[in-house]
Structure formats: C-alpha cells, structure tokens
C-alpha cells in the first residue's frame, strides 16, 4: 500500500504489477543513477563484459562503456580506496566487491579512511560512495565465499549499512544510497537475486533508515534481515494456519537503524524474536535486542527476547551442513511457536 503510494508519488506509475528479479532491480537502479548523474560510475572486478559474478551488471558496460563501468584488477584495497579518493573530489562511485568475504581486504580504506575522513577533516570533505556486495550462504561455495559481515559495518561510525530483502526495496534503497552523501555499504543477498517482486518503472527512492512492517501480526514481533525476511514471512504463513500471527519487521537499513518501529511492534505483541543469517555471537541481533530492552518496550515484554541466527561456525561446504549452519523456515517456525506458546 505504502509502496504503491510512493511509486505513484514518484511519477504517476501505473503498471503496478511489473515484476522484476532482485538482480534486475539492482541493475535498473544502477542504470537510472548513471543516466541521471554523469558523476556516478562503477568500478569492480568483472563487472564489465563479464556482467558481474552474479550477472547483476549485465549490459551496463555495453550501455555506458568502459570508462563508467570499470573493470579493475583483483585489488580490493585500492578498489575501495580509489572509490573514496574519487568521492572526495567530485565523483559518486559505486564500487563492487565481488563477494562480501573479500571486503576483509578493503577494511582499512573503508573504515579508517572512507568512514572517518569527513569527521577527521572537521566536516569539510564529503565522501558520497556506495559499495555494493553480495553476501550470504546457500550456494555451496563454502567458508570463504559465504560471509555475512554487516555487523562489522554497523559498528563503524560514519558508515551507513543497507540490506534490502525485496526487489522493490533493492531498487529504491540503492537509488537512495547513491543519492546519499555518505559512504554506504549496500549488502545484497545471493539467494535473493532470483526472487521476484513488484518494481515500479522509473526513479524512486526508499528512504534510508526506515524499518518496514512486512506483515502485521499480534502474537510475536519477528525482526528479520535480508534473506531471513522471506523465510520469516513463510514461517508466518505456516503459523497462521495454527492461529499464530507473526508481525514481521524488516529494518532494511541497519545503520542508522530505525529502532522505533520495532519498539512499537513489541509494545503491541509483547514478544520478540530476531532472526539473521550471520553467526549469532556478536551479530546485528544483539543491537536489535539491546534496543528493545533498553526503552519503552521493556515494560511490555512477556517473554525472554531471543535471537535465532547462524551457528558460530564457518559456512561448511556439505549441503546439509550448510543448511544446518543458518536459520531455515522450519527453525523460525519452531522458535516462534515456542516463544508464543511460552515453551521456552
């Protein structure tokens, strides 16, 4: 509903049923941003002729040419650093790190330079850059190609962190991220790339830092990120048949995090479960829980607040082990049911 209104507001969109995949939505956002603003350009590994490791940038090289869709050598530190340097001097780079795992090679340039420069320089520089990267497990790519590291970046003042779960949000949030004058880490999920959803044509933005209630419900607030949003919605469908109504909230932007929407939800439901793919220990879930129990929702809590997240294990190769390592629909169903029924 809200989505349709936004779309209408953005330009009289009528074909509200147009469906795109998440990957197409990301691509369309890149295309629109590059068309609209010649300062926007892309750099990364194999984003040109190859079309990106997941095909996301397919066709953009042909449309915008090698100057604006720049294939780089395998040099993640300078990919990030060059993006920061270009951003400080008038460009609006969109860098791609081919798998989120490889961002471990960009940390210094992102965290000690990109995130801090504006502050260290007394607000006298601006670093408008977006770093897109695919995260997550489920592809059998094992421990060095399955990372979900968003929590690290949430902990870095100066960065913003966006993690869309639907094609609609992916497009609108990416356009908002590119418009934003701060460095934004934009985390895409590999398993979402092929999921489909309504995506209006034309330019629209989804504001950074607005959590969204993806499904209203009265019994339990489930805060889920990225791939866990569709899993939570599926769990909600299953539990609805048992008369249990989950309210599913998607933060969408993890930093700055709109905790208020979750607080409102928990005040209503009295119970909360936070679900993410990254390992539980030290994950974003801790932040969500800590915000729930620190303020207005505390007095309404009727049950322990729980996290359901990845096990503290590197992602294994074996298919069954890989599934076991991160929450699946049935795990959400089980945990949610237990919390609602007080069986904890």
């Amino acid at each position, binding site marked *: 509903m809200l989505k349709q209104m936004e779309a209408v507001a953005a330009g009289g969109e009528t074909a509200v049923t147009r469906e795109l995949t998440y990957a197409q939505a990301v691509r369309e956002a890149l295309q629109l941003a590059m068309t609209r603003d010649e300062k926007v350009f892309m750099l990364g*590994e*194999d984003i*040109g*002729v*190859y*079309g990106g*490791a997941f*095909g996301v940038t397919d066709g953009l090289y042909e449309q915008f040419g090698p100057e604006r869709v720049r*294939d780089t*050598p*395998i*040099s*993640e*530190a300078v990919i990030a650093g060059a993006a920061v340097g270009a951003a400080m001097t008038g460009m609006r780079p969109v860098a791609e790190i081919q798998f989120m*795992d*490889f961002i471990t*090679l960009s940390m210094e340039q992102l965290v000690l330079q990109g995130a801090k420069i504006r502050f260290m320089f007394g607000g006298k520089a601006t670093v408008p850059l977006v770093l897109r990267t695919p995260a997550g497990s489920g*592809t*059998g*790519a*094992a*421990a*060095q*190609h399955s990372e979900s590291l968003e929590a690290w970046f949430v902990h870095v003042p100066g960065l913003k962190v966006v993690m869309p779960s639907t094609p609609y949000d992916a497009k609108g949030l990416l356009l908002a991220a590119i418009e934003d004058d701060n460095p934004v880490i934009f985390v895409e999920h590999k398993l979402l790339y092929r999921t489909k959803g309504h995506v209006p044509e034309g330019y629209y933005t989804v504001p950074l830092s607005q959590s969204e209630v993806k499904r209203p419900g009265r019994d339990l607030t489930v805060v889920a990120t990225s791939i866990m949003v569709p899993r939570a919605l599926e769990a909600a469908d299953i539990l609805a048949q048992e008369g249990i109504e989950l309210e599913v909230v998607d933060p969408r932007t993890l930093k700055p995090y709109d905790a208020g929407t979750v607080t409102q939800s928990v005040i209503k439901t009295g119970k909360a479960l936070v679900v993410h793919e990254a390992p539980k220990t030290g994950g974003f879930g801790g932040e969500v829980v800590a915000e729930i129990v620190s303020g207005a929702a505390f007095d309404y809590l009727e049950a322990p607040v729980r996290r359901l997240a990845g*096990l*503290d*294990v*590197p992602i*294994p*190769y*074996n*298919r*069954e*082990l890989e599934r*076991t*390592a991160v929450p699946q629909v049935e795990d959400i169903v089980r945990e949610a049911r237990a919390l609602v029924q007080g069986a904890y």
Partner: protein
Amino acid sequence: MRPSGLTAVALQEALRKMHLIRLFEEKAESLYALGKIHGTMHLSIGQEASAVGACLALKPDDYILSTHRGHGHCIGKGAEPKLMMAEFFGKDVGYCRGRGGSMHIADVAGGNLGANGIVAGGIPLSTGVGLSIKMQQLGKVCLTFFGDGAANEGAFHESLNLAAIWQLPVVYICENNRYAMSMPVEAAFPIAQISQRAVAYNMPGVTVDGNDLFAVYEAVKTAVTRARAGEGPSLIETITYRWRGHSKSDRQRYRTREEVKAWQARDPIAHLEQQLLRAGLLDEAQLAEIAAAAQQTIEASVAFAEAAADPDPASILEGVYA
C-alpha cells in the same frame, strides 16, 4: 630434453598425474552437470604441466599452498583422488570431512596446506611456512601457486618482500593463464611479464612455458635448490591457459573460440607424450596403459565417494576450535 635427475619411473608417474588431473576434472564437470555436486568449481584442464612439473621438483615432505583452481596442485603433490572426490561430494571421509569442498581441499599430512578460495590468500601463509621451516631448520621448501590475477593483490607484494629480506625457502609460482576471471593480463598489468616483478624484491624471476613439463620442472628445480641451500625465494611465471571457463557460470564473452582452440592445440599432456615417445622412454602401448589406469582410478574414486557417508549434521561444530 630429458631433464637430468628424472628417472623413467618419475616421468611415467608425472604423466599419470597429468591424466588424473584431467580425468578428475572432466568427471567433476559431468557430476556437476548431473546435479550430484553443488557449489562451484574451477577447472585447470590445460594447465596440468604447470602443476605436475612444479611438484616434481619437490620432496614428499616439502609443502605446497594452492588456489581456487587447485585440483592439479593437489594431485601433483600426491593426494589420493578418492579422498579428493569424497571431499567433492561433501563426504565425511573426504580430505576436509565435507567441510571444505573443491575450493578448500587440503592434505596437511601430505604437505598440501590447502587450496584457497581467496585470490592471493595463500601467498602470505606460504611466507609464514617458509619462516617456520627456516626457524625449525627443517630443510624443507614451501612452494606456493597463484594465478596472474593474484599478482596484483597487496598480499603478493608484502609477502615477496618479507621472504626476500628474510631469505625464506619459498618458491612463488605464478600460473599465468592469461585471464583473471574475465580480466586479460594485458589489461591488468602494465608490464609484459609478471616475473619482471621479481626485480622489486631482488629475487630471481623467470618466465617459462607452463605447458611444457620439463621447462616448468627445470625452473622450479633451480629455485627449490636455491631455497634449500638457504639462498632465498624465487618467482617463477608459468605461461599456460585454462581450456574451460573460469567457473561454472562463465559465458566466456571475454575471449574467442579461436583463441581457446589455438591453446588446445598445445595440449600439455599430448606434448609430454610426444616428448616421451621421441625420447624412446615409453611406447604407444605404455602410454595407453597409463591413461587407462588413470581412468580406472578416477572411476573408482567416484564409486568410493558415492558410497561414503555424509557428515553427521550434529557434528557441525567439530573443527571450529581445537
């Protein structure tokens, strides 16, 4: 033409390993197509001489580190195909108990400190292994493989510098197969030969025909001898080519069929066979026998792997901590 110090038996064994690599990977490919294997894989078909020639210069207890395109190095270092195949199937008896898969096969007991999913990820490790060898006076050598793409990572630079100033027994082998995924070396490098970078670290740097087992062997042997004598590291570039796409999803829009065909005409296995024939070391029948035996080994490895048990999901946390 027959490198000094190599016995006929050793050459026969080298040829056998090259067949094993090719057959292992062809099998892997078809298993993937059948949906029996998930994930991704990076095939080194066409690069067999580089892997086997390099490992031929090592002793059994020397170390190697390898890459995402590591099956060849693994077999070159003496791994058992059935344990590799079991790993590929994600089975508990596989080299990594099904936890690693194609990109992380390691055979620590056999001196293979692992394939590596991270481009250049093994290079700093190998420098540390060299340090460890030196400090413990083990008399071993550590040989580390990496692709052309890896030579533009910062880790390459830091590692070669450290090995050079500390004179560590490490041999850095850059397998230049002309592409890093879709990036041609001509676009990624401002220099003609990656081995020229050895100048920056004052170590020997040579470029050799990576499709010629003997050329690779000779260059690596020289470097290994040097390293073992305490004279420090070397950089060797082997020029080769991967016949297959980068990984399963590669549409290969960055190269032409003609280019691939031209390189296929320089098949390292056929080349070695010709060399052995001409030198009178093996006859046609013996060649066929070696190929057939390799074929059987690979078939048996699949049977072994298929029959093996999956790891118990309840054991998932085993191996995270010692």
